[in-house]
Each structure stands twice: as structure tokens, then as C-alpha cells.
């Protein structure tokens, strides 16, 4: 009997690959991850697949009907001028904002990578706006851009210039939103570059100074190569973040004038929660998801390649 029992035991031991300690404890270990995993499956995995499924359907909210329509939503998206414009606006906005984030973030980090009080205060100023919510930032900037009484109007008239109203101009609306976005978020790239700069060993610069290298030259051959990886990281983060632009346009321009500033997420939001075309909106959301996955993969591929060089 005792022998039987030990055979039984060793079978289970092997089955669970438990090693030296006992099995019940190992099963118990799943309870650490169970609360999170159930939330994760319920609130993330299931919605991802329902979203994909919804995008192949037409949903009639009044009748409560769901009709399978195959790829119809996607075909309609391709023929939808507003959607194509939204895709273009999204890329255009990323192109407007991401490079500024990287360059300005780096410049500020280089200038403010210094000990002492002045540096600390200035760093706090440039990072401070990042903690504000999107609604506070847009409220402030809508007041800045306000026709006739805004800050921009005041500044331009006091300099004797013809005042402009950027949010009402099709060509200036997105750049104006991009300026607001950079103002809001430049703290993050600045801090990322600062922590990269602080990890460069001081000896490298001392050695360069011994060789009578100019500041420009030591920047070019020491600083830049050392922060290459951070620059790639900052670019990736900013491209992903800015690709998802929503709150600023929804609050400042509502996509206007004449759809000139409507990006993808605003399109998804309006199709889904203004026109209640849920299947259509879900299809647009899949396009966003796919574009972001492609973007991240391409960027990972490029950075791996440049890293291998």
C-alpha cells in the first residue's frame, strides 16, 4: 500500500514537473496570477477578439440585430473620403510633432544637463506641463488661440503683425494642435535624454579634452553615439503616442475646419459614439491597430539592424 502510494506520488510529481518541493504548493502559485489574468482576459483579450468580429458585422442598435457583412465595412472605409483624410491627417500629425519632440527634447536635455539650482528650476518648468490633463492643456491653448482676445492675438498685434486665427484655418489647425502637443509633452523626451546623458562616463570627455578636441567634435563623436539607443527609443515612443492623438483635436477643432484636422482616433470615436455605426467604427479601429503594429515592427527591425552595424 505504501509502495503504491509512492508510485502514485512520483507520477504526479513528474506530471507537474515539480522537482523537489511538493505539488500542491505549485498549484497554489497560480493564485498569485489568477486575479490579474481573469481581469486581463475579460477586459483585454475578449474585447480584442470581439472588436475584430464586430468589424465584420453591421449592428442595428435599435432592432438589436447583428448582420454578418464580411469585408463590407473595410471596403466602405477605403471608399470613404473622410476616412482616407483621417489616415493622412494622422501621419501628417506624427510627422509634424514627433521630430520636434526628439530634437527639442534633446536640445533641452543638452542645455539643462547641469548641476545647480538654475538647471533644476528650468527642468521643472519644461516637465511641469506633462502632469496636466489634456482638458486643462486644451483649455489654456484655446484661450491662447482665441480670436480677438487670445494671447496670440495680443502678441501679434503688439508686434504690429496681422493676427492669425490658427484653429479656423485648414492649413494651420493641425500645426497649431501640434504646437500645443509639444508644449504639453516635451518633458518626457527631455527627461529620457537627460538620464541617457548622465550615464555617459565623464572620463570620455576628459580624454577628449586632453586631445584638444573641440566641444563640437566631442559632441559629435562621444555624445551622439552614446545616446543613439535613447534617440531610437524616444522616436518610437513619440510615434506611438502621437499616432493616437485624440483629446487635443476633439476639444480644440472637432476635426475641422472641413475635416482638415480629423485624425484616426477621432474618426473611430465619432463613427462609434456619435453616429453609432459600431461595425464601421470597429473596422476603422482594426486599421489603426494594424498600422501601429506595422509601425512598431518596422521600427524594431530598423533599430535592430542599425544596432547590428
Amino acid at each position, binding site marked *: 500500500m505504501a509502495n503504491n502510494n509512492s508510485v502514485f506520488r512520483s507520477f504526479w510529481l513528474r506530471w507537474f514537473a515539480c522537482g523537489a518541493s511538493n505539488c500542491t504548493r505549485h498549484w497554489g502559485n497560480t493564485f498569485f496570477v489568477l486575479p490579474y489574468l481573469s481581469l486581463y482576459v475579460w477586459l483585454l*483579450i475578449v474585447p480584442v477578439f470581439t472588436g475584430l468580429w464586430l468589424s465584420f458585422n453591421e449592428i442595428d442598435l435599435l432592432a438589436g440585430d447583428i448582420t454578418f457583412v464580411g469585408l463590407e465595412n473595410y471596403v466602405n472605409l477605403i471608399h470613404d473620403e473622410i476616412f482616407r483624410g483621417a489616415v493622412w491627417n494622422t501621419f501628417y500629425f506624427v510627422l509634424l510633432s514627433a521630430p520636434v519632440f526628439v530634437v527639442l527634447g534633446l536640445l533641452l536635455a543638452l542645455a539643462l544637463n547641469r548641476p545647480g539650482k538654475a538647471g533644476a528650476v528650468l527642468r521643472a518648468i519644461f516637465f511641469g506641463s506633462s*502632469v496636466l490633463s489634456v*482638458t486643462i492643456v486644451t483649455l489654456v491653448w484655446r484661450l491662447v488661440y482665441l480670436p480677438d482676445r487670445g494671447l496670440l492675438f495680443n502678441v501679434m498685434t503688439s508686434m504690429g503683425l496681422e493676427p492669425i486665427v490658427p484653429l479656423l484655418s485648414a492649413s494651420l489647425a493641425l500645426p497649431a494642435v501640434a504646437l500645443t502637443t509639444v508644449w504639453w509633452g516635451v518633458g518626457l523626451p527631455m527627461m529620457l535624454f537627460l538620464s541617457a546623458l548622465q550615464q555617459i562616463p565623464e572620463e570620455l570627455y576628459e580624454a577628449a579634452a586632453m586631445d584638444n578636441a573641440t566641444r563640437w567634435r566631442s559632441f559629435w563623436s562621444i555624445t551622439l553615439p552614446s545616446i543613439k539607443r535613447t534617440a531610437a527609443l524616444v522616436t518610437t515612443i513619440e510615434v506611438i503616442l502621437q499616432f493616437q492623438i485624440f483629446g487635443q483635436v476633439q476639444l480644440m477643432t472637432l476635426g475641422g475646419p472641413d475635416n482638415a484636422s480629423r485624425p484616426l482616433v477621432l474618426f473611430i470615436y465619432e463613427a462609434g459614439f456619435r453616429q453609432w455605426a459600431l461595425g464601421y467604427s470597429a473596422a476603422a479601429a*482594426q486599421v489603426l491597430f494594424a498600422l501601429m503594429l506595422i509601425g512598431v515592427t518596422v521600427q524594431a527591425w530598423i533599430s535592430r539592424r542599425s544596432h547590428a552595424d
Partner: protein
Amino acid sequence: MTKIAGKQFGDRIVLACVTIFALVWITPLIWVFMLSFKPNDFLMAHTNILFSPPFTLKNYNDILGTSAVSGWIVNSLIVSIATTFLTLIVASLAGYGFARTEFRGKSILFILVLAGLAVPEQAIVIPLHRMFADLDLHNTYGGLILPRLAAPFSVYLMTQYFKAIPKDIEEAALLDSTPRWKIFLRVVLPLSIPAQATLGIFTFLNSWNDYLWPLISASKPEMYTLTLGLAATQTNFAQSEGLGYLMSQAVFAGLPIFILYLFFQKHIVTAVAGTTVR
């Protein structure tokens, strides 16, 4: 010698330039702050007189007396604090489970969680909205809190942290065959307080500033968070008779979080910048 002097001189110029740039950078904030103390009818004619009278506190009085702002602040506090606490509990447990314990299917499950990092919020809001409508969760605190708890990032962060804690700290306790949950509570959890602080600040700020999901889920004004409520007051922006009132709302909503930022600046910077690096 002259070279060093030249270097210092160049450094001064750089500092001067950045200081001027910083002043330009915060001009919008100063302008809004100063004008929020002006009477509304005065602002109809002048928005360029900042530092001389008339001054008034009426705009702030109006916020406290008539508007729903205080209710929104309470909502924001409830949602953000609950989200933060629940995230810390769930993510610490899961992080410890993935980093330190063995169970079947662990690596596959962890890869599944990491895959979730690639899912943008916007891709799932429509199905989430339907699910929550079926469960009657819209316009409730639960409806605002729950989706945030599924964020894979917090689990990833805690897993990385627990992996970095030396194993031998636990081993002595393991030999005594102390139950795993006791080791977690008494030995490992106290060591993870710095990580808890970082994740806590990060989660609180994100939840406080969250916009898209509350906009979709909370349609009743009494369930608005502060972030959402401020958006609602902006919609009737065109009849901007209450310019000073709008400005005082921006200040009123921004100032508490800004003061918090000044107090916890170091932690917030590590929380926001540090979490992105990992």
C-alpha cells in the same frame, strides 16, 4: 586658461537662451493665471493687462458656489485612488507570481500578457462599451475603474522588479516551508515599496488625467471626473462671456496637481520617465 573662460562664457549664453525660452514657454500659464483674477466684463475689452487692477476673486467664488466642480473632484479622487490601490494589489501579486514562483504554463501566460502591451486602448473601446452596457456598468465607479486594471504594463513593471530582488532572501524562508503567500507578504512585499511608489504615482496620474474612456463611459454629468467635466465646460466656448470663469477653472483644476508635482517632483519624474525606459 582662456579656453576655460571661453567655455564658461558659452555656458552662460546657453543658460540665458534657455531661460528666455522657458519664460516664453510658461507665458500661456502666467497669462491664464493672472486673467483668472479679472472680472468677466473687463475681459470683454482687455486681455492684455495682467499686472494692474482690477482684480477679483469672483470667478473662484463662482466655481465653489455654483458649479459641479467639487463633485467632479470627488469622483476623480474616488476613481484614481481606487484604481491605484487595486492596480498595486493585482499587479504585485501577478508580478510576484510570474517572477518568483513556478506553475504550469507560466512562460506562455507571461508572453500572452506581454502581447497585450501592443494593444492600443482605442482598438477595444467599442467592444468594451457594449460589454459594460450589457452589465449596466456605465455611469458607475466600477465602470470607470475596471478597464484600467487590465493594463499589462503594471504587471510587466512589477515582474521586472521582483526578478531583480536577490533570491537568497526568500530561500531561507522557503527552507522552513513557510507558505508562499506568507513569504510574499512578510519578506518580499516590504522590499518592493519603492516600486510600489513608482507604479502608484504613475497609475494615479494616468487615471486622474484619463480622458477617452470616461468620455465614453460616463455620460451623466454627476458621474464626470474632473478631466471630463472640464471638457464639458469647454463645449459652450463660443459665447465666451465668462472668459475669466473659464480661466479660473483651468487654474482651479491644474493647481492641485501642479502643487503635488512640485512636492513629489523626483518621484513623478522617475515614475513617468523611468517606467518608459524599462
